[in-house]
C-alpha cells in the first residue's frame, strides 16, 4: 500500500529537526499554532501539576465545571496520609455568575469547604473565565484567610495567559508564598539537609528517593511536591540544598529560594541508573566535610545496581537494536530516557518535548544519533509520520500519545503523571525495563496489519 505523505505545517517547520540534515536552529518556547492539535495543555494544567500533591490542602478550581471535571483524580501522586488532593472542587460557575461576577460564590464556597474538610491551606485556581470577568480572587482569598486562619492562596493560572510553563510559574509563586508564610522564625540550617523539588510521588517515587537519602544520612526537610503536607514547608527555608528534578517546573521556585534564603540548588534526575547515581553522588559531594556520606552513597549505588543488573541484562538481550520514540512534557525527562534506553540496548529514533528550550534541544541533539528526529510541541500527525518513517518498536509518552502508538501497532510505555508504577530510582529502572520488555515483546504485534500485510480473511 502506498503511504500518503503527511505534511508539516509551514509555520511549524522550524520546530521539527532531523539530526544531520539541516543547520540546527530549532524554534521553541513558542505558543502552539492555532489549529495544530498540540499535545500541550494550558497554564491551569501547569499549576495543577505542581501543587496537586499537597495532600492536606484544599484545591478549589474557580470557573465552570470542565477544568475541575477533567482533572479529578487523574494523577498517580500517592499520599501516606490525607487524600484531600484527590477531590475535585469547583465553583462550577454558571451564566449568572458570569454576568454578576463569581466573587461571592467563591467566598461562600471557600468558607464551606474549609469548614467541612479542615484543610491546612487552600489554593484557588483561576481559570480562563476568571481573568475575563475580572473577579478579584486575591482579595477574596485574603478575606477568607483572615477569617479562617489558614493560608488561602490565589493561583493565577488563567488558561490563555501563556503556556504550561507559565502555569508552573504561577504555582511556584503560590508555593513560595506558602513557604514564606509558614516559615518558622529559626534561621539556622538543618545540618546535612535538602529539599526535594520537582518530585511528585507518582506511584510512590518520592518514597523510593527519600529512602535513598535516608540511607546516605541526608535529611529530607520537604518535598515540593510529593506526598506533601502544608506543615512540611515551615522548615523548607532551613535546608542546605535544593535538589531539583523536573527542572522545567520547579526551577523558578529554586531560584527564588536561593535569592531569599540563600539555598543553592542543583538539577538532577532520578530516572535511569546513570542519572539516579549521579543525582545521589552530586548531593553527597555537596557535603565535602562528610566523606562518610559519599562512602554510604557509593555503597548504596553498588548494592542497588547489583540488585537490578542481572534482570536488566536479560531484558537487554531481547530489546537490543529495537527502536524507540520519545515524546514527553519536559526535555529533562527526555535526557534521562535516552540514557536509560541506551542502557537497554535500544536506539532512540525520535525525541520531542512539549516545553523544551533551546539549550535543552541542543543537548538532545548531542545525545542522539544522526538521523534522529527532534520535535518541539509536536502534534499527532507529526508524531505518527516520524514513528512510521523510523519504524519504531516503542513509543514513550503520555495518555494522548498512547492511541497513536497503538493504532500504528507499536509498544507503549506511559511516562506521564497518570501512570501508577514508580519509574524513579534503581527500583524504578527495573520497573521501566520490565514494562518496556512486556510491551515490546508482546506477540500481538505479529498480528497487527502494519506488520502482517497478508489479510488472511480475504
Amino acid at each position, binding site marked *: 500500500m502506498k503511504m500518503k505523505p*503527511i*505534511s508539516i505545517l509551514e509555520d511549524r517547520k522550524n520546530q521539527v529537526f532531523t539530526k544531520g540534515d539541516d543547520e540546527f536552529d530549532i524554534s521553541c518556547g513558542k*505558543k*502552539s*499554532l*492555532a*489549529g*495544530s*492539535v*498540540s499535545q500541550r*495543555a*494550558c*497554564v491551569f*494544567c501547569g499549576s495543577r501539576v505542581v501543587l496537586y500533591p499537597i495532600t492536606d490542602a484544599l484545591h478549589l478550581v474557580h*470557573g*465552570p*465545571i*470542565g477544568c*475541575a*471535571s*477533567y482533572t*479529578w483524580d487523574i494523577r498517580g501522586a500517592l499520599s501516606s496520609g490525607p487524600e484531600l488532593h484527590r*477531590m*475535585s*472542587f*469547583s*465553583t*462550577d*460557575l*454558571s*451564566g449568572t*455568575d*458570569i454576568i454578576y461576577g463569581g466573587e461571592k460564590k467563591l467566598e461562600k*464556597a471557600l468558607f*464551606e*469547604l474549609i469548614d467541612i474538610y479542615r484543610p491546612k491551606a487552600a489554593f484557588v485556581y483561576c*481559570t*480562563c*473565565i476568571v*481573568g*475575563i470577568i475580572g473577579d478579584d480572587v486575591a482579595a477574596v482569598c485574603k478575606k477568607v484567610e483572615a477569617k479562617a486562619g489558614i493560608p488561602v492562596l490565589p493561583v493565577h493560572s488563567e*488558561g*490563555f*495567559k*501563556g503556556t504550561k510553563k507559565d502555569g508552573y510559574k504561577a504555582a511556584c509563586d503560590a508555593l513560595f508564598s506558602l513557604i514564606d508564610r509558614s516559615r518558622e522564625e529559626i534561621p539556622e540550617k538543618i545540618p546535612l539537609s535538602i529539599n526535594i523539588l520537582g518530585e511528585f510521588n507518582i506511584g510512590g517515587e518520592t518514597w523510593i528517593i527519600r529512602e535513598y537519602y535516608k540511607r546516605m544520612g541526608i535529611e529530607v526537610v520537604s518535598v515540593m511536591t510529593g506526598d506533601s503536607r502544608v506543615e512540611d514547608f515551615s522548615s523548607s527555608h532551613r535546608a542546605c540544598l535544593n535538589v531539583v528534578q523536573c527542572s522545567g517546573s520547579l526551577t523558578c521556585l529554586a531560584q527564588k529560594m536561593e535569592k531569599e534564603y540563600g539555598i543553592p540548588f542543583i538539577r538532577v534526575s532520578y530516572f535511569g541508573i546513570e542519572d539516579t547515581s549521579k543525582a545521589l553522588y552530586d548531593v553527597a559531594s555537596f557535603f565535602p566535610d562528610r566523606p562518610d556520606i559519599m562512602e554510604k552513597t557509593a555503597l548504596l549505588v553498588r548494592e542497588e545496581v547489583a540488585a537490578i543488573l542481572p534482570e536488566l541484562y536479560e531484558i537487554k538481550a531481547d530489546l537490543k537494536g529495537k527502536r524507540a520514540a520519545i515524546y514527553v512534557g519536559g526535555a529533562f525527562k527526555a535526557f534521562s530516557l535516552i540514557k536509560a534506553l541506551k542502557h537497554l540496548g535500544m536506539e532512540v529514533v525520535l525525541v520531542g518535548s512539549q516545553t523544551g528550550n533551546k539549550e535543552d534541544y541542543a543537548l538532545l541533539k548531542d545525545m542522539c544519533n544522526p538521523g534522529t528526529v527532534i520535535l518541539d510541541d509536536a502534534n*499527532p*500527525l507529526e508524531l505518527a*509520520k516520524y514513528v*512510521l518513517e523510523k519504524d519504531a518498536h516503542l513509543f514513550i509518552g503520555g*495518555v*494522548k500519545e*498512547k*492511541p*497513536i502508538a*497503538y*493504532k500504528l*501497532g507499536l509498544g507503549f510505555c506511559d511516562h506521564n503523571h497518570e501512570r501508577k508504577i514508580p519509574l524513579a530510582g534503581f527500583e524504578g529502572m527495573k520497573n521501566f525495563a520490565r514494562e518496556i520488555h512486556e510491551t515490546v515483546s508482546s506477540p500481538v504485534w505479529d498480528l497487527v*496489519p*502494519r506488520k502482517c*500485510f497478508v489479510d488472511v480473511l480475504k
Partner: protein
Amino acid sequence: MNTAKSYTATRNACKMCTPLGAALVFHGIEGAIPLLHGSQGCSTYMRRYLISHFKEPVDIASSNFSEETAIFGGGANLKLAIENIIRQYSPGMIGIATTCLSETIGDDVPMILSGMDQGEGRTDLVHVSTPSYTGTHMDGFHHAVRAVTAYCNPLGSRIRHKPKPRKRINLFPGMLSNEDLRHLKEIFEDLDTKLILLPDYSERLEGPSWVEYHAIQKGGTPIRDIRDMSLSDASMELGALLAGLSQKGEKTAGTILKERFDIPLVSPGIPIGVKATDSFFSALEEITLKPVPEKYKRQRGRLIDAYVDGNKYVSKKKAVVYGEEDFVTAMAGFLAEIGIIPVLCASGGRSGLLKQALTQILPQNIRDQVHVHQGMDFTQMEEAAKKLSPDFAIGNSKGYTLSRNLKIPLVRTGFPIHDRVGGARILHIGYRGTQQLFDTIVNTLLGNRQDISTVGYAYM
C-alpha cells in the same frame, strides 16, 4: 423533588462541560474534525478524557487563545486555525464549538465564519455555541446535533423527490456507546430501511489497527446523508428528557426538521428494558411500516425467560443510578421492571425534567422509595446514598469512589469508563443489550454475595 443539603462548591462533579459533548458529535460525522474556540487546555483535556474512554485517537483542534486574543478578540486565531486544519486534515467539515472564554469575550463566530471564503465543495464550517457555564456535556451534544442538522438542511433546501420504494429514517440516538450505535444500524439493516444515524462515532472511535496514519479515521455519518435528512420519511429522537425539552419548545434536531420540512418526529425513550424496547420497536414499526423481524422477537423471548430465571436475585434490591438524565431515566425504568428499586436517581444535569420523566416511567408503588436529584455531584450522592443502604451502584466509572466508600459493587455502564477496557463496547440497548445488562447485574450481585460469604458456595 428531594433536595439534598446544598453546597456552593461542586465536589466531584457528575457532569462534564458543554464543548465535550459537541466534540464527540463531530467525531461521529464522516470527515469532520472538532475545533474548540478557546484555550489550548480545553481541547487537550477533553482529548485525554475521550481517549481514556475510547482508547482511540481523538483529535480536537484548538484556536489557542493568548492574552492578546482574549483582549482583541479571537477572529484572527479562529481563521488561522481553520486554515491550518484544512491544510493538515483536509476535512469535509469543521465543527467549531465555543468555550467559556470565547463566549464571554463575545466573539461573534457566525460573523467571523461568514467572512471566510467558502466556495462550492469547500469545507463545511458548522458553528455550535457551547459556553461551558451553561448546561452539561449532554447539552453540548444535543446542540451540536441540532447545529449540524440545521446547517445541512436550510429552509427551502428540500428538492421534490420521487417516492422512494425504501423508507428512510433520521435517527438521533443521543450519547450512546459504540456497540449501541452498531446495534441500531443492525436493526435498520434487518428492517431493510435506510438509516441516517447522527452522530455515529462507532467506527471512527473503534476501528482496526492501521497500516498508515489516518488524519481523520474512517466512518461517521456521511455529510451527504445529513443533507438528505430533509428528504426522510420520519425522524426519531431517543431520550425521554429530550422529548420533554422539545415539548417545552426548545428546538432539537428533530423539531427543526419537523418545522422546516414537516417530517414526522417520534421520541421514544432510550430502549433499555423490555417495555422501553417494545415501545421503541412499535415506534419503528409505525414509521418504517415493517414488522419487527423474528430475530428480535426471539431475543425478547429469551430476555423475559432470563428475567424469570434470575428474578429472585434482583427483586427488592436497591440501586444508585447516576449519569446523564436521559440515561438515568432509561436505566431506572429497566431496573424497576425487574424489581430493583432505584432508590437514588441522580444527575449533574439540571434540565428540570428528570423528576417528571421518572414519574412517567416508574410504577406507582415504588415511586415514594425513589429519591430524585438533579444538579447533584458525587459527594452529595454518596452522602445521600449512605442513608439508603443500596446494594449496588450503576453508572459510569466516575462512581467508583462512591461505590468503594460505600462498599457496594459498581456496574459500569454509560460514559465515561476510564478504569476498564471495552467501555465503548458495552451494549445497553434493545433486547440484546438489556440481556447483557441483566446478566451483568445478576452476576455482580451473586458474585458479591459469594465473595463476602463466610461459606463461599460454588453453586447458586
